[in-house]
């Protein structure tokens, strides 16, 4: 492991000092098994304790440490410096979100959107509470991909539609809506499709597909949104032809 140096250009924004975001450069010792998060922690612990960012699990599952690295939304714990290092590594807060401080952005808007798609099992009758519902391996497979979303928000940072229309429900919340609609235990599909068929719903999506490109868990929210458009259309047609019926 050859030791050399790498330059981190990190965007700083400190609301209490006023002013606009600026870049600050740090030179850090580099090993080829370092991820971008290791670089940020080196700066925090050894150079500048004021640098502010979120992190926790450092294994790509908690979703805390997203940032734009050289202009691409990424989990900094899963991005090796060796793969992005072209003279310097530029680290900026995730695009499209309000910046709270340095690399920390505000995700509250997403949590409201997630709540708006009824992200839980809906049933009229829960049946025998002591017995598991039968679900075959292929039933689980039907929603497994969408259930892997870690809410890291990289897809929102990559989405030009969300960037220009912040009310858009967005990729992750849509994928999670589809996750519940595809679950054989759920009866809430109709309400979710109604929500997604609104002005701020899936029709906003112009199928750029960047959300699926940046997703670290292969959730493929772009495909989920296209499926939801189809399901929303089917629901609309059915309601015209068979008033009072509901989607399944």
């Amino acid at each position, binding site marked *: 492991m050859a030791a050399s140096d790498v330059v981190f250009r990190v965007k700083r924004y400190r609301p209490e000092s006023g002013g606009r975001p600026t870049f600050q450069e740090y030179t850090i010792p580099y090993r080829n098994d370092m991820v971008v998060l290791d670089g940020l922690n080196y700066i925090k612990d050894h150079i500048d304790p004021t640098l502010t960012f979120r992190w926790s699990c450092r294994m790509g599952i*908690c979703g805390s440490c997203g940032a734009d690295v050289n202009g691409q939304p990424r989990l900094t714990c899963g991005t090796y410096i060796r793969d992005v290092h072209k003279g310097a590594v530029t680290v900026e807060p995730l695009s499209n979100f309000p910046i709270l401080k340095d690399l920390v952005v505000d995700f509250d808007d997403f949590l409201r959107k997630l709540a708006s798609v009824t992200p839980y099992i809906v049933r009229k009758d829960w049946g025998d509470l002591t017995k598991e519902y039968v679900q075959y391996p292929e039933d689980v497979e039907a929603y497994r991909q969408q259930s892997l979303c870690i809410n890291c928000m990289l897809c929102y940072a990559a989405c030009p539609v969300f960037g220009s229309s912040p009310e858009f429900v967005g990729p992750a919340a849509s994928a999670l809506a589809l996750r519940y609609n595809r679950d054989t235990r759920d009866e809430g599909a109709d309400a979710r499709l109604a929500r997604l068929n609104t002005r701020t719903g899936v029709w906003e999506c112009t199928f750029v597909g960047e959300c699926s490109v940046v997703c670290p868990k292969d959730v493929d929210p772009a495909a989920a949104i296209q499926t939801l458009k189809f399901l929303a259309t089917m629901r609309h047609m059915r309601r015209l032809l068979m008033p009072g019926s509901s989607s399944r």
Partner: protein
Amino acid sequence: MERTSFDIVVVGGGAAGLRTAIAAAEADPELTIALVSKVYPMRSHTVSAEGGTAAVLRDYDSFELHALDTIKGSDFLADQDAVEFFVARCPEEIIRLEHWGCPWSRDEDGRVSQRAFGGMSVKRTVYAADKVGFHILHTLFQTSMKYDRIHRFDEYFVTSLIVDGGACAGVVAMNLRGGTMVAIQGKATILATGGCGRVYEFTTNGFIKTGDGMALAYRAGVPLKDMEMVQFHPTCLPGTGILITEAARGEGGYLVNKDGERYMQRYLPSKMELGPRDILSRAMIQEMKAGRAFEGPYGLYMGLDLRHLGAKKINERIPMVRELVEKYMGLDPIHELIPVRPGQHYIMGGVSTNGKGETTLPGLYAVGETACVSINGANRLGSNSLSECLVFGAACGLAAAGFAKKKASYPRGAAAREALKKEEARVFDGVLGRERAKETVAGLRVEMQQLMERDVGIFREESALADACGMLGKMRDRFAAVGLADKDRVFNTELTAVLELDFMLDVALAIAHSARNRRESRGAHSRTDFPQRDDANYLKHTLAFRTDGPPRIDYVPVTVTKWQPVERKY
């Protein structure tokens, strides 16, 4: 103006905290609940749990057997009444999660699958591939959104409990974004902040696992129980400490030394790789000392061999193992050995509670890894901890709801105002006001972590423990000189790191002193100078009480119902 008085205040948004909040919300439609977390709940460390969660669901299994495995695994330090309560309620909690949408892996007949796990004598561990904690956390978090009465305080760091007239009346918390202190008052307060793995240098735990809830209770006069009982997981990736799940062995993986030998045949031939974690971690260290380990850039390691399992099984059952090993080691476990070594993973000890989560302070509860009921005794079996969060979360939520319901009025504001003022002065005028000098948070933290690693690790003995107690006492004093460079109020993560280090030093002192005082070997507590278990003197729980000096250590008996302590043989 944000509401700041609630019936119930839950601190922590992981599996234990969320399960508690939902149970309280379901118990009574009138109750208001605050869920206070220093991170967005879906970032909580439950998310990193991998292998599974235990419950008796099939005819080949029984509560009796789950209880016996747990008690034997605990080296007879578990309270047997608590274990009996626990095993009987695991199935309903697993089914509850199933009804709420948790994507458990299924058998061909549509039933929830179960896999083998260390120390469990039959296939008892329910799983969702190897992302069990992730799925439990997101299922609970999303389900919690059903309840408008669960009012979230996301990214609020609790700095102190409000104690009024000998009872807990809520918390004082720092709103990280606003950079202000707030008092969040509650008739009942539940601590569910997880463990304290970051007290050690090499740990599977996330950065946020700093023992906050343990220190909060400890400072309010509540004892910490069995803190010497620290679990080291045998299979962690060298360098990062990232966990490779026990499910890798549950699905048939081997542990091998540099000669390619399945060395567990020397230590535990009856169980081999599926022995309990304390025994496996010790065996690994012994193999290293015997010169049969591999050597790499991050020191000695052993091999975890999954190659014989084949690509299909690996991809279906333990996909995250492959993902993590490829990403963080640059190796493909389908074709190559996984380098592993033991690392801190869990603490069996915690805030002393009974089976309802009640502590000695009225109105204060603790649950999950923060608490010590104790069902885990001196060594927890893999896949009992998620079940513990669920079972005792539900029990604690119900108990706290009943307690809150009986209290007609909210706590009076005077105590809260006073506590708030005190914390504002302590944190903003005191800690934040200290100028940066020689002592830094990062410097002192790593010294503490390395000390704990060296002196209070897998094998322990008197001189090292005495050294640790002395050094930690000095670090406790040095902490007063830790200064800060960041003087901002908004999202000051240097400030939270200092407050977390303050908590961790308390917890580390409790661990080291509890370990020094237990002059026997039991479960994960392995004293080279006292290698035998000593039931005559130590079949009891350690209690550590905070004082102005070193912790005061006391003992209480272990509850034995029907399993008389015998030698722990597998």
